[in-house]
């Protein structure tokens, strides 16, 4: 009888341990999902102010560093974004150039060559970058979290920094090209976008002033 009771006790103990393990595992998975859900939710709330904007026009300064250049390359101009699919970039310095992107069509206007029309699908890196910017400005947290590991920081001026690291996915070629992207956000305004590549490649876009914003 004592032996039978012991057997029962053993069985009960094993079941209890298994239940605890299952509970712990579920909690971990839940915690992971929760973490992701929390990040998504945070990202969504971070990007929410941008969803109010229907168009924006701003001046910028772009600094490009590369192993190939003698020194940093600086260009200046203005960028106009009209939701959902139109981006117009006018480079004023060093040489005038206008780049218009509407849906999948890209048109480059320059003094030397006139207008050159291409399909943005033929330039996957550019296409990916434009999707990223449009996702931010449209509050599309899903696209961002699909392709990037997301984390948030605060800088010295208490501005939020959105840190993006490309995820190792089968069709995500950005992993080979980009180490990380750091976007400084001040409520409904992007202050700067810094892209770090490998081998000393960097590109920083700083927004100088807002020329026009439509809600």
């Amino acid at each position: 009888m004592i032996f039978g009771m012991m057997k029962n006790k053993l069985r009960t103990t094993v079941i209890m341990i298994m239940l605890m393990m299952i509970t712990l595992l579920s909690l971990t998975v839940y915690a992971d999902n929760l973490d992701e859900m929390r990040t998504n939710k945070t990202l969504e709330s971070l990007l929410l102010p941008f969803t109010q904007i229907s168009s924006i026009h701003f001046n910028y300064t772009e600094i490009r560093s590369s192993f190939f250049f003698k020194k940093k390359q600086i260009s200046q101009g203005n960028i106009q974004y009209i939701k959902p699919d139109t981006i117009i970039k006018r480079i004023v310095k060093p040489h005038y150039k206008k780049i218009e992107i509407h849906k999948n069509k890209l048109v480059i206007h320059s003094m030397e060559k006139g207008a050159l029309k291409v399909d943005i699908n033929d330039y996957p890196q550019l296409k990916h970058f434009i999707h990223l910017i449009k996702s931010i400005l449209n509050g599309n947290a899903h696209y961002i979290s699909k392709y990037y590991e997301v984390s948030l920081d605060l800088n010295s001026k208490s501005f939020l920094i959105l840190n993006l690291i490309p995820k190792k996915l089968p069709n995500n070629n950005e992993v080979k090209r980009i180490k990380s992207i750091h976007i400084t956000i001040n409520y409904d305004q992007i202050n700067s976008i810094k892209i770090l590549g490998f081998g000393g490649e960097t590109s920083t876009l700083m927004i100088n002033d807002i020329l026009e914003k439509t809600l």
Partner: protein
Amino acid sequence: MFRKKNNIIITAYFIVAGLLLIYLINSLHLRSDMSFFSPNTLSETDTLIQEYLLESDANRLLFLQLGESHPNNKNDIKKLAELSIQLRKNIQMNPHFNLVENGQKSVNTTLNSQLYRYRYLLSPNVSEQLTVSSLKKQFHYLLERLQLIASPDAQKIMAESPLNIWFSHLKSLHNTQLSLKEDVWFNQNNQAVLLIKTKATGFSIDQQKKNVHFIEAQIKQLPLTNNHYTLSGAAMITLANSKQIAFQIQVISTVASVILALFLWTLFRSIKLLFLLALPLIFAILVGMSVVNFFYGYIHGISLAFGITIIGIAVDYPIHYFSHLINTNKTEDFSDHKNVMLTIWPKLRLGLVTTLIGFSAITFSSFSGLNQLGIFAMSGLISAALITRYLLPMFIYKNHLIALLWFKKFIAYFILFKNYFIYRVLIFILILIAIVYISTHEKLWENDLASLSPVSNELKQQDFKLRKSLNLPELRYLLLVSAETEQGVLQQTEAITPFLEQFIHSGAISFYDAVTRYLPSINTQMERQKQLLDSDQLYHNMRLALLESPFDIEAFRPFIDAVADNKQLKPLRPDDLEASLFRTKIKSMLNQKKGQWTGLIFLSGVEASTLTAEFYHLFNNSQTIQLIDIKQQTHHLVANYRSESVRWFLWGSVFIVLFLFFYIKKITALPALIFPFSGAIIFTLSLLLLFGYSISIFHLVTLLLVVGLGIDYSIFIYKSDHLIEDAQIMTLFSVLVCMLSSFIMFFSLSLSSIPVLKAIGLTASMGASFAFILSLIFSRPSYSVHLLCKH
């Protein structure tokens, strides 16, 4: 004791059959290529074309299109691109595939390859791009590209090859009409396209079946919407062909076998008999295959198929024997069986020997396919006759020939043949009319084997369109360039390259693939070396070009070093190439035989009439360059084969007539033996032409069967006139059963939608019917008159 001895002999026969089967399982080598239609001594051009057809890349390619095909589809490009990339990865892991391309660039492979090192000798027009103005322009493009951050691999290439010469050159080698979206190929219907090259040739049906199953299994694992995809290519056409043929043969032979079995069972009322009837044919096939495989080391698939068709005569031997058993097997006395066999054996033997004489003629042909056919048929028929003679009498069988009673009742119908003379004259006139009709027919011969293919035109068109969009070589046209040396071929090819470009401009072709695209001649490489700038000169030009540019010239030191390296490299020959797919490709485009070198230039998107006109205008008197139309060459081969076949068939017929004349020793008796099979052939040919068919080699070979059947029927009917009445009826009955058996089998085949099967079925069923009717009409008058008087 007698029964025990019989059982031992029967067992011995089956052991021999078993040994033959084991030999075939272990050693049988089946070939399914065009060499069946080739003479044993081929010209060098024909040998080259045959090797090209067998071994070329063109027949190893499969094309896969993912997504819906209609123009207004809602294909998700990004998703299809992901699937294309995943599929490429999965298929590449299978060692049965040499190459899987979907448009993705493989940077690492390019950087490591021997060819990358030689890029400035292999790419054209390099020196023109090293001038100051050209460098300035090229670096301006580079500056544009560097607006976006580059990956480490891309940075390496930019430093070593900033002018993008190598990738532009690679792009020109794989020039396609497809667009690149999300890094992979898409056609104009937004379907993702993959190009797959198998290790096995397109004719290796078994391996290609496995390859296709593997690909389809990989596709099923993907989340492809509604499983929309299309797989095409030469192997798919071959598989579709063989699948259709195999399916129809299976259905038809099953149905025909059941009908035939029911028919024979109705007559003989014995299941055991059905097995015994099949024995001689089974042995005939085993022996035929073994003999051919033993002497040749292989057997053509077509020889096997044709051979089995024409040894269908072997089924008649046991039918004659078992039909004649009716009056004699009331007991289980083996001697009765033996006596019946001894009675009919002289006729069987005469029929066999006459048929063998006819078939022997084709064994003298210079075509291995015909030789094999002759040997297969002869050895098969001899073994069938011997099995009938010595083995079948050892089986106890009680003949319940109930149907014979019914046959006796219907014998009155033969009153139609009462007045033989009128019918003979009528038949003779009809034969003459038929001969005139045949000889004056507009389209007598069918040389185009493709028209006999059951595969839909849609599949063939799809294959053609895809090849054109990928600028892949067509299976029909190519150019041959000849010279005494390998370098001579490369130089000749370079010399005609401007004309090939002209062909593209005029629309005669859309693309050409020549060995010099990949590996120029040594002379050209040395010329390019001379034109390359040395390090100091290049540095000077770059310094001037980059004066107002943000570029640091030192970042491009690897480029300067690479150009200097190319200036002193030993030019590359085909034999210097490292083992790779590239080397295999180059080697497949160059051929050496008997001291003569030949280069193959593959053509794509050919407009036949324009190409032919322009080619002959430019190269009409050239000894070193030929335009080959493989379809024409094949027609030529088939026409030669057919002419040779007809010649040997006619000789065979002459041998038969001579033999019968010397055997019978009576010239007045010859018509009864010759007219049945010759009349059957003439009437069958004329009816086929009347129905709108042209005569192909399949019809011709089946006529050999008709010859055998005609000889068999005429000998049995002719030689029964001296027999007593019941035996006469029995003989007539056995011949009728033979004819009906053949008719059932082949008429079923004629109902097939596959042109080849229809040809064989129609020819044999009509031929057997005519042979029987003509045998009755041309047999001696006393025979039927006597019977008719009785009934």
